[in-house]
């Protein structure tokens, strides 16, 4: 009886069309994918590995306190609905950006937090890259540490993943450079003194040594665009969320590392 049940469930899933992201010819084969962690020196890896030495954990601690703090005119804390984040938030960050039915488009984790604040706490949205928003995102993200990334598998997200992929592949800006030129074609070479990685955002929000602070994937992407000398999207812009979504789908099945440390 049990085996028939399992086959039936598998059949239902296939019928529902849960898709594994398609691989384009230029993309990195699954077996060759490596987290940005593997490109770092042993000293920097050691900073990420030790929770008492990882500065990102300071934001996680802040986030833990914010989780329990009542806020907004509804005077509610995240914990009032979501209880212990260790249980309720496990696996959540691994599937973000996720499809939001009301908006009909993907939202990233920071936007989801602000939507919750508006809808359930009647609180004002936290500004992008503010300490509080980063702390909450880091705290929620850390609950998914070790969980394989599944962002982008929802079939409703397919057109948005495609748009993100187009942005990644397209040559743009003053240098006529596409993200793919470095991150698909030339990873593990160096740009000046820095290793070119595979652009797999497994550990966001992360502590970047260059920033001496925790920051979001969107901040990192805007950095990249500055370097590429192309038009920089605003925080929260749909193009940026689509790019985030595509990048997370690139990292399909890789474990979440939040809060990571990167140079």
């Amino acid at each position, binding site marked *: 009886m049990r085996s028939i049940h399992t086959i039936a469930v598998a059949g239902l899933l296939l019928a529902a069309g849960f898709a594994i992201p398609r691989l384009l010819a230029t993309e990195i084969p699954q077996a060759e994918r490596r987290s940005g962690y593997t490109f*770092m*020196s042993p*000293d*920097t890896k*050691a*900073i990420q590995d030790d929770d008492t030495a990882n500065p990102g954990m300071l934001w996680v601690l802040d986030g833990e306190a914010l989780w329990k703090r009542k806020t907004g005119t509804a005077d509610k804390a995240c914990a009032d609905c979501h209880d212990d984040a260790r249980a309720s938030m496990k696996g959540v960050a691994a599937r973000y950006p996720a499809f939001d039915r009301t908006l009909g488009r993907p939202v990233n984790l920071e936007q989801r937090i602000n939507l919750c604040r508006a809808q359930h706490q009647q609180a004002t949205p936290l500004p992008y890259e503010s300490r509080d928003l980063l702390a909450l995102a880091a705290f929620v993200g850390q609950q998914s540490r070790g969980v394989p990334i599944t962002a982008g598998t929802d079939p409703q997200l397919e057109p948005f993943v495609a748009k993100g992929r187009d942005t990644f592949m397209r040559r743009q800006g003053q240098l006529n450079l596409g993200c793919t030129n470095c991150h698909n074609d030339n990873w593990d070479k160096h*740009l*000046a*003194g*820095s290793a070119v990685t595979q652009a797999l955002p497994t550990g966001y929000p992360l502590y970047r*040594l*260059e*920033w*001496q602070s925790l920051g979001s994937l969107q*901040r990192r992407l*805007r*950095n*990249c665009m*500055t*370097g590429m000398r192309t038009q*920089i999207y605003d925080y929260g812009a749909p193009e940026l969320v689509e790019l985030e979504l595509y990048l997370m789908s690139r990292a399909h099945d890789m474990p979440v590392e939040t809060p990571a440390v990167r*140079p």
Partner: protein
Amino acid sequence: MSAVPIVTLRPAEATPAMLASAIRNVVGAATVQTGKVKIDVPPLVENGNTVPLTVTVASPMTENDYVKSIHVFNEKNPQPNVGNFYLGPRAGRAQISTRIRLADTQKIVAIARLSDGSFWSVSADVVVTLAACTEEVI
């Protein structure tokens, strides 16, 4: 830093003379011997904003023979001092770790003051490169 003729409160770059005078502030007229002190620092840093540094001094750390303090200096940051660390016989082991900023490829100097009043030093050369993609200034 470039040689732009702007009057600033502090010079943009420390000079060997500043390093020497900062060391003199600590050791006074005493001779500084080489040895006993070890610096652990990556020879090529991942990012100059955060460089892991460990300084160890060979010492029995007993009531009568211990390290009083460790002083770390640099050569090319705007200021020569990095940190002073005060130990004592209760430390057990004369070793400290921290993370420092290095503005450019340069020399780091660590000087230990022992309980008998002697000074010991070591220096290490560190290569520092700038990150490839920097941010727009906020």
